[in-house]
């Protein structure tokens, strides 16, 4: 099928340098342009100083940068802060208002898609669809590991799409669902923390087993914690914990074993099966080496599925390796994004 796959970068990728004051928002956009990517994805709550207000000055600068660097806004990453008050959850009406605020901001800044988190209640999305339609924004629920497509969880949202027949709500997969192994910097960090090689090996083997056997997918549950717990249990968490315990693993080792359940391997066929509802993609990455190989995610295999499916849209680099490095090292997000963009370019063009 004919495809038109474009490259974007989520500025989330540069968070380490931004946090430390080494890169400004404009610097981040300039770095994206240098990689040859044309799309800019933004977390306004991370890098827009006056959030939730778009000042006329900011708007002018924003579109000025887009022109200067030859880029365009792709995805606006929203957070539904529905526990903004300690003593209660926001009402449905308040949550829809918050979503509408973000949809309007996304539109004002020229974005076409809006990322909403896996935890967004169905009724909030449903209630926000008219606003999304009026503002030409596609709300995309992030398919973030350990959540997955072709799952009980995704079925619930698919039903909403079919019931409302809307073109303004769909999915955005995150490549964290395509991990064939534990991200290498996560394993290295665990070793740095003093976890024994026996435990490291046991955790690796358990992950390999899950990949070979196939992960048991997560179900839909309004209680996210419960769904997550059931998912881990079904994928062998208790057995792994017992093993690590027997090997003399301490709390750090158990925490590490636990954290590896955040990464999953899904069949890229999931992309092909759901392509007509996929409007944006987080090309998550943890470590891309000098040979342009992401050490846990088989980029070519995943991008091939997007090509086969005839995807029209952006693959947006989301580098998240910083937190696996910054306990001990300085992080070079700029270089990691550059390498990952080159890996994407090759997979798309070659």
């Amino acid at each position: 099928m004919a495809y038109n796959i474009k490259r974007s970068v989520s500025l989330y990728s540069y968070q380490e340098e931004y946090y430390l004051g080494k890169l400004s928002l404009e610097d981040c956009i300039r770095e994206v342009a240098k990689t040859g990517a044309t799309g800019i994805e933004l977390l306004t709550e991370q890098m827009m100083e006056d959030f939730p207000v778009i000042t006329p000055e900011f708007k002018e600068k924003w579109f000025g940068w887009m022109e200067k660097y030859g880029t365009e806004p792709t995805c606006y990453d929203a957070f539904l802060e529905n526990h903004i008050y300690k003593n209660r959850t926001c009402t449905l009406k308040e949550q829809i208002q918050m979503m509408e605020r973000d949809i309007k901001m996304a539109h004002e800044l020229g974005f076409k898609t809006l990322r909403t988190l896996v935890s967004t209640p169905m009724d909030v999305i449903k209630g926000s669809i008219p606003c999304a339609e009026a503002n030409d924004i596609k709300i995309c629920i992030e398919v973030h590991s350990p959540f997955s497509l072709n799952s009980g969880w995704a079925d619930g949202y698919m039903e909403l799409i079919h019931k409302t027949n809307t073109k303004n709500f769909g999915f955005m997969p995150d490549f964290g669902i395509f991990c064939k192994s534990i991200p290498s910097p996560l394993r290295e960090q665990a070793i740095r923390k003093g976890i024994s090689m026996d435990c490291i090996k046991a955790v690796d083997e358990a992950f390999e087993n899950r990949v070979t056997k196939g992960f048991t997918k997560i179900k839909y549950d309004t209680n996210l914690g419960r769904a997550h717990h059931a998912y881990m249990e079904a994928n062998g968490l208790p057995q792994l914990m017992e093993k690590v315990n027997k090997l003399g693993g301490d709390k750090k080792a158990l925490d590490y074993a636990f954290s590896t359940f955040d990464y999953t391997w899904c069949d890229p066929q999931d992309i092909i099966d759901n392509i007509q509802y996929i409007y944006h993609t987080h090309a998550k990455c943890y470590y891309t080496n000098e040979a342009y190989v992401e050490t846990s995610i088989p980029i070519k295999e995943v991008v091939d599925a997007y090509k086969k499916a005839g995807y029209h849209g952006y693959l947006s680099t989301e580098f998240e390796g910083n937190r696996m490095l910054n306990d001990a090292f300085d992080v070079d997000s700029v270089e990691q994004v550059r390498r990952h963009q080159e890996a994407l370019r090759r997979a798309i063009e070659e």
Partner: protein
Amino acid sequence: MYPRHMYKPDGFKNVEAEGKVIGFQFDTRIQYYRGVTLSIIRNIEVCVDGEEFKREDIRFTLEGDTFTLDEMETVISYRWKFGQFATITVLKDGGLAKGKHHITSTQTIAPSYMPVILVHSGEYDFEI
């Protein structure tokens, strides 16, 4: 999240009011990957040289305005921005003695979508 870059190296000092040293303060960044309203900062704990301070003795100052930790729970019009330094003041008669000290500070943050609350600490050696 960013324990190595949590503190401003030259931000540690004793605080005086009406000619008396009433405590000490330091500048710190949020241990999370975005800015948030103060209402979702559930706690800030401070421990210096093994001495833990009471929640009611801690003050949080952002852009010139100061709140207690209890007051912060209702503050939704101030945001602690990503990468921005806020000032933490700990009320302690006489402040800290001149010389070297070790601090551990822990932030508890409750972003809506997390099934778990985030608790992140960072340590630092400083001199007053």
